């Protein structure tokens, strides 16, 4: 009640706003969870040919991730600010704002549809990982799409670390 009373008075709200925001910040800090790494696998979608918008660039198959008892529960994207080269030798993308990622499960359901690549990068989210409802994925059905080709070259790789557990 007291907060709403302050809000009604514009000048008082200017004074109270920083304190109100701080209380909200502390509350969010106290209730927020972050991911625990149990197992991880680096996966990538390579931009083959001239980069083009609207084209689906599928992830390279990783047999490790085909297990039926696998539960994917988080992911993290990498640009050159986090990782220069992937384990397979491809250069990571340097731009983060023109790429979206779509993940599909074993039932072909696009449970993560066109999520901005920028959002999956941990450093852009104050260290918070992208946490997902645990699912079994079909990696070769998952893909990235470019919404803007500026700064992306042929042979670049859109790389992620997938965090999973075997149940």
């Amino acid at each position, binding site marked *: 009640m007291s907060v709403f009373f302050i809000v009604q008075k514009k000048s008082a709200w200017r004074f109270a706003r920083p304190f109100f925001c701080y209380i909200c910040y502390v509350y969010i*800090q*106290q*209730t*927020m*969870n*972050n*991911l*625990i*790494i*149990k*197992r*991880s*696998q*680096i996966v990538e979608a390579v931009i083959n040919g001239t980069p083009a918008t609207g084209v689906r660039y599928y992830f390279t198959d990783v047999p490790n991730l085909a297990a039926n008892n696998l539960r994917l*529960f*988080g992911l*993290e994207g*990498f640009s*050159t*600010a*986090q*990782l*220069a*080269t992937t*384990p397979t*030798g491809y250069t990571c993308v340097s731009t983060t704002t023109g790429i979206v990622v779509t993940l599909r499960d074993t039932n072909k359901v696009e449970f993560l549809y066109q999520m901005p690549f920028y959002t999956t990068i*941990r*450093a852009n*989210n*104050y*260290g*918070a990982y992208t*946490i997902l*409802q*645990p699912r079994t994925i079909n990696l070769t059905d998952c893909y990235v799409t470019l919404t803007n080709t500026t700064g992306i070259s042929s042979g670049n790789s859109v790389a992620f*670390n997938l965090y999973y*557990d075997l*149940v």
Partner: protein
Amino acid sequence: MQVSPLVEKMTQNRWIRPVEGRQGEFLKSVYLPFTATGNFSVAVGKTIYFQPDATLTSDKVVITGIELVDLSTNTVLPTAQGDRANITADIAKRGYFVLSNSKREIIAQIPLACLILNLNGGRPTFTYFDDFQWENCSIYFQDITGLSAANGAWFKVFYNKK
């Protein structure tokens, strides 16, 4: 406070934990001083294994967090083989930490830059590694520009006793 069933399930499975939680009950600093020749020399793609550690064995402990100390966090890495300079964040972008178990199965492969606290908003990297063989764990670099025997890697390993 009401907790959603999904959050409860993920917490019970040790997939998530509150951000304000401490990384572990105990902390061990592990040093990897690089050398000009031998097992600890740096080369492109060369695996540099950790030394066996009497504390860090998976029958005794669970690794609950790992952090890499970079040059801007602490400049000097004091080791028994002499002082080394910690690797920079730029070099860390070209390296990986690899955690393996006794069967040499790779459990996790994490870019070194992701283990540096100050690059990730001060949020620690939580882990739950209960099946590992420390001497099978390693680091490697895809590019060694700026890296030499004058450098070393400093890992802070947080763990709980089983």
